[in-house]
């Protein structure tokens, strides 16, 4: 059988291959789910040449097929060993990544609850720590300056209605 992915052949690491298999399965599942959900769309406008469920249904099936081919092409590839100095996924790196995503999610959810200036100050300090800034005076200075700058740009210059705009 021919290699489905000529470009990617022999240039994928073990971790990438495993992750691509999971991702391909995810696409396959999402595509089937999408098509199934599309069948539930009410199509009252019968005079339309194509009904609102037409594209979601076929796009879902297409995505499922594409996911299947991603799976097969990843399966066919012969993975390379991970470079110990530059692995695709390493524990420390992943901890930083998901800590940053977690901080971003919390920041988003609190955006309308806590005073913008203080929330941004805290977020800058946390993301700077994640990005390897040492705990110390520079961390405080950088966070403070960034928060002041953001506050001036968004609240003062653009008048974005966020909590805190009325306080100072």
């Amino acid at each position, binding site marked *: 059988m021919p290699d*489905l992915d*000529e470009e*990617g052949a022999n240039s994928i690491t073990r971790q990438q291959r495993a992750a691509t298999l999971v991702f391909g399965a995810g696409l396959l599942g999402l595509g089937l789910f999408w098509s199934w959900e599309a069948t539930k769309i009410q199509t009252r406008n019968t005079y*339309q040449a194509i009904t609102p469920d037409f594209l979601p249904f076929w796009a879902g099936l297409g995505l499922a097929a594409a996911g299947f081919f991603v799976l097969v092409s990843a399966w066919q590839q012969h993975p390379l060993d991970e470079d110990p100095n530059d692995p695709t996924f390493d524990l420390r790196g992943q901890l930083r990544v998901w800590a940053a995503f977690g901080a971003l999610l919390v920041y*988003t959810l609190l955006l309308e609850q806590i005073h913008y200036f203080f929330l941004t100050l805290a977020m800058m300090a946390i993301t700077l720590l994640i990005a390897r800034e040492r705990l110390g005076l520079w961390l405080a200075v950088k966070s403070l300056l960034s928060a002041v700058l953001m506050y001036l740009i968004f609240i003062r210059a653009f008048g974005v209605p966020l909590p805190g705009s009325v306080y100072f």
Partner: protein
Amino acid sequence: LDPIIGFMNGLALALDPTNIMYLFIGVMVGNFVGVLPGLGPVTGVALLIPFTYGMEPTSALILLSAIYYGSMYGNSISAVLLNMPGTPAAIMTAMEGYPLARQGRAGPALAMAAFASFFAGTVGAAGLLFLTPTLSQFALRLGPPEEFALFLAAFTLVATLSGSFVKGVAMTTLGVTLATIGPEPMVAASRMTFGSPLFEVGLNFVAASIGLFAIPSAIEAMERPTKYVLHRASLRMRDLLPTRKDLRESATAFPLGSVIGFFGSVMPGIGPTESSLMAYALQKRFSRRPELYGKGSMEGLTSVEAANNASSVGGMIPMLSFGIPSSATTAVLMGAMLIHGLQPGPMLMAVNPNVVFAVIASMYLGNLMLLLLNLPLIRIWVACLRLPQNLIVSGVVVLSATGVYAAANSVNAVLVMFGFGILGYILNKLRFPVAPIILALILTGPLEAALGKSLAMSGGDWSIFVSRPIAMSLIALAALSVLLQLPILRWIRSRRTGRASRG
């Protein structure tokens, strides 16, 4: 409308003090994001969209376009001095520019890059000026079946030219699938919302583009900071000037790179990266000194810089004439136009010709500004390279979240950005192309509308797409671009080649 008269009107509009100010800000911001490793034009344009909400559409478009071509200038600085191309389009610049810097010729290399960018940007703007009105007039004659076929061809070209065929197709399909969330284009009936208010109005385009481009680049820099050593170089004005020999040797690279970059990028799926690679390969083939390539060829560097700048201008043609973005950055620009109430495509030239001509005129002024400011301000750009990376990436994360909130005035949009941020990070890790998703997000609505209108015209008869010559040719092009990539055909071809070489 006569292009010359249109240009004069556009120039008058572009010379308005407010527009000049935005143009200046645009080229400076563009240069800044281009200089910083890890940030590129698409991130710069996406991040700045929320700041343009209160502006006139013309000013907003002038600013965002200036960021695009300005970043191409900035890219060459980090490529030459750090051996670190900010975007893939500058890989060849680094390959030739860094060896030149190590030979003590960083200044002339940067100057030649600036001259080439200026030359190509100006040539590209001239091409844009004369081609856009003609192509727009042609596009106005197209009916819904031709429009559908055009969008389909754009989809297949983008999917098949994204490197890996399987990954390109998968990402295009994922984009189309996600684009079906929210109001359906024909009767605006809401669908695929799963009962969540998050999806009721569809996926916020600004949130999706910032999530796909800005967030992953910042998070990746947090995961693994980019290590680089700044090459020390004399950056006094007199040390920046190229020699006559440099100019003579690169004489053909200016026009060749510009022409390849400009015309290459007119086709969807071919952006600055592909254009600069084509220009580099062709220049090397015709070079009198091909042995210098890879070791510091001024000619190679000039050709690449001309190509990627001409491409950033030429890429505007399909967007302005047909409403088809040719790359991720033009897709984001197109999204910005829609937000400002401008409909990219042939109607734009008919309804708002002054906006188009003002943007084209601003490109001349912007390129001139970049040439005049870039070299004298080179020390400032180099100083930007010394900014703490962690401060920049943390700032990008916060700026992205607040910018999306400011644009949509809703936490839901920031949550969409968050979701796309995770998706973008995973896709980058697994080396899946991201551009097809953003193109699909923006083109699926018009594609579905054109399909619906076409079938309404034909009473549901699908043969309408093969009974009209232009539609049929475009569908044949789309089919051919897919067929040529099919693994079974590639396999047969490779077996034949193998047999021929053995025989």
